[in-house]
């Protein structure tokens, strides 16, 4: 097994220790879904469609967004990376033939396998309540394009979290930056409202930002909110952002190391 495979296995074990945290998070997720259901249910009362989408389509969109967050969302990777830097734990990686980005990506993948399993469990619990309101399209191309879109989304999410974590090379406390970016990502990633409900002009700008591909894009493909042409174009833009952010992460890492003094290692 390669060293990154080992990191993945160790990541699985350490994340299973925190299974209750994921369980509690699933419970919060269910409550949040109830809020979404009540709010949008009230908005749809008397309106058969909003922005061209039925209540079932919109609720399906939010359910998929939440499940995606469990499978491919970066939760606290930025915090873990910043702690490695602040506590000097990063020094051990500098002395070994390990690529820190690849190591962290392996741990991130392991964490998402565990949290994804809990997400699925939460979905199974929620399904009896929401089944009558869900409307998933069954086109094969949506799955075929949705899977690479999800993989690229995971890379984008991880790379952004990685870059924010590396800010600890320059700042003592990065929590403010992280929560600031979380607010932007939550809004422009489509977790608050489906982005296609924004005014067309705003939507046309937002679709070229990386946040668009953090949650909305794969959810829009899978839930039938966008067609084939849009999905193909979007995949190309998403691939560009994934590549750009990985390069940015490498650049920030190199610049950060120049600042690093390895104190406390």
């Amino acid at each position, binding site marked *: 097994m390669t060293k990154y495979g080992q990191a993945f296995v160790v990541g699985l074990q350490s994340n299973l220790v925190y299974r209750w945290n994921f369980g*509690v998070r699933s419970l919060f997720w269910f*409550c949040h879904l109830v809020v979404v259901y009540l*709010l949008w249910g009230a908005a749809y009362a008397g309106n058969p469609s909003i*922005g061209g989408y039925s209540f079932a389509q919109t609720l399906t969109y939010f359910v998929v967004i939440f499940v995606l967050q469990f499978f491919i969302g970066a939760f606290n990777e930025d915090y873990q990376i910043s702690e490695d830097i602040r506590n000097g734990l990063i020094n051990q990686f500098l002395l070994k033939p390990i690529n820190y980005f690849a190591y962290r990506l392996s741990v991130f993948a392991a964490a998402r396998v565990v949290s994804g399993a809990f997400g699925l469990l939460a979905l199974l619990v929620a399904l009896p309540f929401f089944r009558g309101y869900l409307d998933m399209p069954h086109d094969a191309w949506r799955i075929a394009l949705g899977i690479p879109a999800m993989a690229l989304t995971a890379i984008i999410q991880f790379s952004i979290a990685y870059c924010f974590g590396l800010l600890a090379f320059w700042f003592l406390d990065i929590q*403010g930056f992280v929560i600031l970016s979380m607010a932007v990502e939550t809004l422009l990633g489509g977790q608050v409202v489906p982005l296609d409900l924004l005014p067309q002009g705003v939507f046309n700008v937002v679709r070229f930002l990386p946040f668009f591909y953090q949650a909305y894009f794969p959810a829009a493909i899978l839930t039938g909110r966008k067609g084939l042409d849009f999905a193909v174009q979007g995949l190309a833009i998403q691939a560009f952002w994934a590549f750009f952010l990985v390069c940015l992460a490498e650049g920030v890492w190199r610049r950060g190391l120049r600042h690093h003094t390895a104190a406390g290692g």
Partner: protein
Amino acid sequence: MISFSHYLRIWLASARYSLVRATMFRGDLFIWASVELLWISVNVIMVAVIYSHTPTVAGWSLYEMLILVGTSMLIQRFLMGFFWSGIFEMGRNVRNGMFDFVLAQPGDPLFMASTRKLELDGLLNSVVAAALIIYSARKLGLHPGFADLALYAFMIGCGVVIHYSALVMAMSLSFWITSSQGVEGSYFTVMEFSRLPREALKGAAGLIFVWIIPAVVVSNAPARQILHGFDPSWTLGLCAATAAWFALAVLMFRSGLRRYTSASS
């Protein structure tokens, strides 16, 4: 018996220390104030997008809803500003034994623990929430009299006490469980319901979040006071909920405190 003026002097000293600290770390203050402002904006944008597709939600117009959301945010900003840091640190201090420091201080432990720090960023953003309420009231052509405003302020105070009590109860769990990390998430999840109009909650959700947990009453009661004038049932309901929740919080905190065994707990 320690007098009110004694507590006031302690609180003023803590407030003065917090202000000095905030002005020393101006960059931090700016970042955290921006974080709070951005989260307020996220909520307002969500409401604006929904109402760009429908004239009413659960019978509430756009500006009525903004008063509700603004009221909910105002209460939360006051909680963040006056109590959040102190209560949040309580969980960590109980785990590592630092709570001894609070017990050694000259006053009630709950007061000393929860009023140690003032967060200026939360208080600054309460001005933004208040501005949102005033703007929406003007758009609706409302001209509340002095008595209406005084009652509204009183109800906001009740709301802060209920939020405070909910948070104290959540963080008091640290006396029983070894890790209360993420417990604050339960507070945020429950309080998400406070941004919903009462009419949107039906069935079990209505029973739980209106009658058992007063998340909806906290924001709906003052908002209705501004929109429709004095309503004895909402006012009395809010007062009763405030008294009951504060009593429960004090009871739970004291019962937890009896389990506290210093650094070894």
